[in-house]
């Protein structure tokens, strides 16, 4: 039985209490994108300043639980300054980590409704983001942890006209 300490690592609570890159950027030029967790009402607003295929700056707004807020904060520090390709690789690695979750009631594996996740890119280092690994033991919270990443991807897609 997973305990609370699996979920609420110290570093998570730290990001929650002291969120990094909190705020707004003038939009335009920054891309502004909103995400919702339909199940609990968490909302996130990202402002992305992308130049030369690189995340030059990022700000995070919105409100939510410790998991969604700390995940957003960690995400912002992890992607800031990275190229879009690096960001996408990181996102894949993060989501791969999130999709390894518990067996469901009936022995089948539970889907969390995310799009099918490609295998984790082998050479991506997750760093602090690893702290969120414990979330997979709490299936309902996975959406909290992935909300900021999904919103980020949506922002990138919109920017490149893929969305």
């Amino acid at each position, binding site marked *: 039985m997973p305990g609370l300490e699996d979920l609420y690592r110290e570093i998570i609570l730290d990001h929650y209490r002291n969120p990094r890159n909190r705020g707004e950027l003038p939009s335009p030029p920054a891309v502004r994108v909103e995400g919702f967790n339909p199940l609990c009402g*968490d909302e996130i607003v990202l402002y992305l300043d992308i130049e030369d295929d690189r995340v030059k700056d990022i700000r995070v707004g919105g409100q939510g639980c410790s998991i969604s807020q700390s995940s957003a904060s960690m995400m912002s520090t992890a992607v800031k300054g990275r190229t879009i390709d690096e960001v996408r690789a990181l996102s894949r690695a993060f989501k791969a980590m999130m999709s390894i979750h518990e067996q469901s009631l009936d022995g089948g594996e539970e889907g969390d409704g995310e799009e099918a996740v490609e295998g984790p890119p082998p050479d991506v280092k997750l760093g602090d983001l690893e702290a969120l690994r414990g979330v997979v033991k709490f299936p309902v919270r996975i959406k909290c942890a992935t909300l900021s990443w999904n919103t980020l991807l949506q922002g990138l897609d919109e920017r490149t006209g893929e969305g």
Partner: protein
Amino acid sequence: MTTTPAVDPLDVARIRKDFPILDRQVHGRRLVYLDSANTSQKPRSVIEAVQTYYERSNANVHRGTYLIAEEATAALEGARAKVARFIGARSEREVVFTKNATEALNLVAKAWGRAHLRPGDPVVLTELEHHANIVPWHQLVEEIGIELRWIPVGADGRLDLTDLDRLLDGARVVSFAAMSNVLGTLTPVERLVAAAHDAGAIAVVDASQYVPHVATDVGAWGADFVAFTGHKMCGPTGIGVLWGTEAILDATPPFLTGGEMILNVTKEGFTPNELPWKFEAGTPPIAEAVGLGAAVDYLEGLGMEAVRAHEVSLTAYALRTLTERFGDDLVIHGPSEPSERGGVLSFAYRDVHPHDLTQVFDQHGVCVRAGHHCAKPLMRELGVAATARASLYVYNDESDVDALSDAIAAAAEFFST
């Protein structure tokens, strides 16, 4: 302020024995189920009614000339009669089985609404509605161009009726919850129905949170439509009810269509069946109706007056003890007077997010829901993104409230460092 008539109090210890799930341990603790506004637990008699139906009488209804088909039909229609009696309907013809309250409210908006509403027609809702009584109307805004108006929520979580006359002026529909699923607020149903009728509007009552908890007499309300859902009143999932007067059901075209709801079908067209089957397309939720009938029996056995009295007193206990223990650290939304509300307690503890609160509760076996409770417009009015919501029912007692209280204290401690 109404006083509740004296009735014998519920024997909760005995009632708990009727609910098999309450024997369960989670995380090594006893299950403290405080999420009945979300869905109620099921007494053994309901579970067994479903099981017995499948083991003894399962057959499709209204169709077979053989014995078990007759039994199945009698079971379905017998359940309809029980539900009709339970809510004070004048006849079974007024009772339509749907899959949940949501389908019932969609039927009203889309079958009645599409046939009767024109561009610009005002439809009046309240700010405390559940999404089920909002989104279908949004669809009609897009489709027909009706105009939505909102009765505001005022201080203490009650409806603010100051502007009622102006809001209802020219209205075609007034649709509102009899009890808020977030705040527990009891709304003035009879007054709103009368005001709707005075304005020339039909009155639609979302009684999803009311029927399970308070003796209901749709006749006394005088409304046109009343919707509620089986799974919140000790019944199975997969069944809901739309009650309507025969007059309004007759004036409502069919909604979902197919088998069962027709008198005749040719390649050129169809003739709908009589009430209530006109609105029941396809194989109905038969076992679910049987279960709902058993749920009605169960609640009638307890007595709805006693159920209400129990919840009022338990809500009073919760409001008092939680406020004493946590003072200003705990904000409980909604009416402060227990007699004006149901046993639904939405609260915030300092700045701990509701999801984090309820995650800690879970470790203590305490089941409380965190989120927007399908009432995002209300959340916005309250100025919060989410609340933690504990809700009480017949199987809860003071020890459950105390367990909640201890869980709040534990969460406070966990997140205080």
